[in-house]
C-alpha cells in the first residue's frame, strides 16, 4: 500500500501553480496519471522517487516512511525501492544492453534475473549492443527491463511510449503489462493516450492544474454520464468533414479510423484533437466528448 500526499509550488508557463495531491494505491495495482502537459504528472513521479523535493510531503510505502516533511524525514533516492523509466529512456551510452541491466543490480542481488529479463523482453540477440545501435522500441524495452532488474517495489513510467508509433506502442504495452504481472509490481504510468490507459490500468487519476479532478476506474473517470450502449470505444477526432446536410467525424482509436455521422448541432461541441467516446445504441451512433 502506497500513501502519497504532496504539496509543491510549480513554475509553469502561466506562472506559479500549486501541485496539491493526495492518493492511496494498493499493492499490485496499475495506476495511470492522466492530464494535460504541465498538470504535474511527472512531478508526482519525481517526488515519489525522491528526485524532486516537495514543500510538504508524506509518503509511506508498505509501512515504510519515505517522506514526512513534518517530521523532517526524507529518504534519499538511492534508498527507495523504485524503478524509473524516463521519457528519454536514460540508457547509459557507454554500456551494452546487458551491462546496462547489470548496473542496476546491487552486489547481493541474484544475477539470474538478467537472463530472465533479456528473454522476457526478447533482447537476447541485442544484449551485446550499445544503446546507440538500437531502435526506439528496443531502447524502450531495455529501459523497462533495466528498471525492473533490481526488483523494485514500485515501477514508475514517465510517458515511455510517447515517442513511438502506434504499432510499436501497442506491442510495448504488452511488454509493460507482462512485466507488471510477472513481477507483481505496483506500477504508476504517466500517459495522455486514452486507449493505453484503458488497456493497462486498474485505476486512473485525472489531473488538471496540479489538482486531482477524478480518481477511479478508467471507464468511470472518462465518461460524464453512464452511457448504456451496445459497444463503445474511445479515440481522438482527426477530421470533421461536411457531407450534404450532415457531418462525418473521423475518430482514431488504436489503429482504426471510425467514421461517425453527426448532425450540425452536435458538431458545434467537437474539435479536432478532442478525446471522444463513440458508442452505438441499437441504431444510432453517439459521439461524446470526454476530455
Amino acid at each position: 500500500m502506497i500513501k502519497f500526499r504532496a504539496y509543491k509550488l510549480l513554475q509553469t508557463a502561466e506562472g506559479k501553480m500549486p501541485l496539491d495531491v493526495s492518493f492511496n494505491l494498493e499493492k499490485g495495482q496499475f495506476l495511470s496519471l492522466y492530464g494535460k502537459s504541465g498538470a504535474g504528472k511527472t512531478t508526482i513521479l519525481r517526488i515519489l522517487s525522491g528526485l524532486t523535493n516537495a514543500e510538504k510531503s508524506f509518503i509511506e510505502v508498505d509501512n515504510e516512511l519515505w517522506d514526512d516533511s513534518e517530521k523532517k524525514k526524507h529518504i534519499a533516492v538511492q534508498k527507495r525501492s523504485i524503478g524509473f523509466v524516463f521519457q528519454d529512456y536514460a540508457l547509459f551510452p557507454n554500456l551494452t544492453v546487458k551491462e546496462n541491466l547489470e548496473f542496476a543490480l546491487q552486489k547481493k542481488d541474484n544475477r539470474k534475473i538478467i537472463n530472465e529479463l533479456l528473454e522476457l523482453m526478447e533482447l537476447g540477440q541485442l544484449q551485446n549492443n550499445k544503446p546507440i545501435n538500437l531502435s526506439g522500441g528496443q531502447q524502450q524495452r531495455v529501459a523497462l527491463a533495466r528498471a525492473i532488474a533490481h526488483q523494485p517495489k514500485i515501477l514508475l513510467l514517465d510517458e515511455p511510449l510517447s515517442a513511438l508509433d502506434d504499432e510499436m506502442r501497442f506491442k510495448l504495452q504488452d511488454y509493460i503489462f507482462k512485466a507488471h504481472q510477472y513481477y507483481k509490481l505496483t506500477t504508476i504510468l504517466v500517459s495522455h493516450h486514452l486507449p493505453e490507459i484503458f488497456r493497462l490500468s486498474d485505476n486512473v487519476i485525472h489531473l488538471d492544474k496540479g489538482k486531482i479532478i477524478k480518481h477511479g476506474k478508467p471507464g468511470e473517470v472518462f465518461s460524464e454520464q453512464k452511457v448504456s450502449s451496445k459497444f463503445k470505444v474511445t479515440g481522438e477526432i482527426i477530421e470533421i468533414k461536411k457531407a450534404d446536410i450532415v457531418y462525418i467525424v473521423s475518430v482514431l482509436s488504436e489503429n482504426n479510423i471510425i467514421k461517425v455521422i453527426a448532425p450540425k448541432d452536435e458538431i458545434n461541441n467537437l474539435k479536432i484533437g478532442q478525446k471522444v467516446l463513440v458508442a452505438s445504441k441499437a441504431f444510432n451512433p453517439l459521439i461524446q466528448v470526454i476530455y
Partner: protein
Amino acid sequence: MIDLDPLWLTVKLALIVTIILFVIAVPLAYWLAYSKSRFKTIVEVIVTLPLVLPPSVLGFYLLIAFSPENTLGKFLDHYFNLRLVFTFEGLIVASVLYSLPFMVNPILAGFKNLPASLKEASFTFGKSTFTTLTKILLPNIRASILTGIVMTFAHTIGEFGVVLMVGGSIPKETRVVSIAIYDEVESMNYHNANVYAAILFVFTFLILLGVYIVNNRKRNISLL
C-alpha cells in the same frame, strides 16, 4: 649544442600541473554543473578569470602573496618550509591557477551536455555519487576530458607572463622554454631561440592535431 634543461622542465611542469588540475577540476566541474548554490556564479567567474586577465596581473598578485614578507608567504615559509617565489613549486601553484579554466570549462561543458536523467537513473539503482561519476558520467564525457587534459597541458607549456613574474629565469628551477626563448633573444642568440621556438611550435601543433583527430572520429561514431 643547446641546453635541453628548459625543455625537460617545461614538460615536467606541464605534466604535474595537468595531473593536479584533473583531480581538482572533476569535483569542481561536477559541483558547478549540478549545484543550486548561490555561490555558484561567483565560483564560475573566479574559475574563468584567468582567461581574460593579463597573465602579468595574476603573476604580480601571486608574487606579492607568495613573498615571505607577507602573511601567506610567511605562513608557508614558517609552517611548511615552502617558498613559492622563484621556485619550481611556485611555478606549479601559479600554473594550476592560470590553467584552471582550460581544464574546468571543457569538463563542465561535458557534464552540462549529458542528460540529467543519466545521473538520476543511476541514483534510482541505489548507486552513490562517486560510482555514478566514475562508472557513468566520466566515461560518457571522454572527449571533453581529453580536450581538458590536452588544452591544459598545451597551455601550461605556452605560458610566459605568470611564469616570468613568479619564477623569474633560474636555470633548472624556473627557466622553462618560453622564458629561455626570451632570454636567448635578449642576448641576440637567434639560432638557439629559433631551435626552442621550432620545437615548441611542432610539439603543440602535433598535440592539437591529435586531439582534433580523436575527437572528430569519436563524434562520428557516438552521436546520440
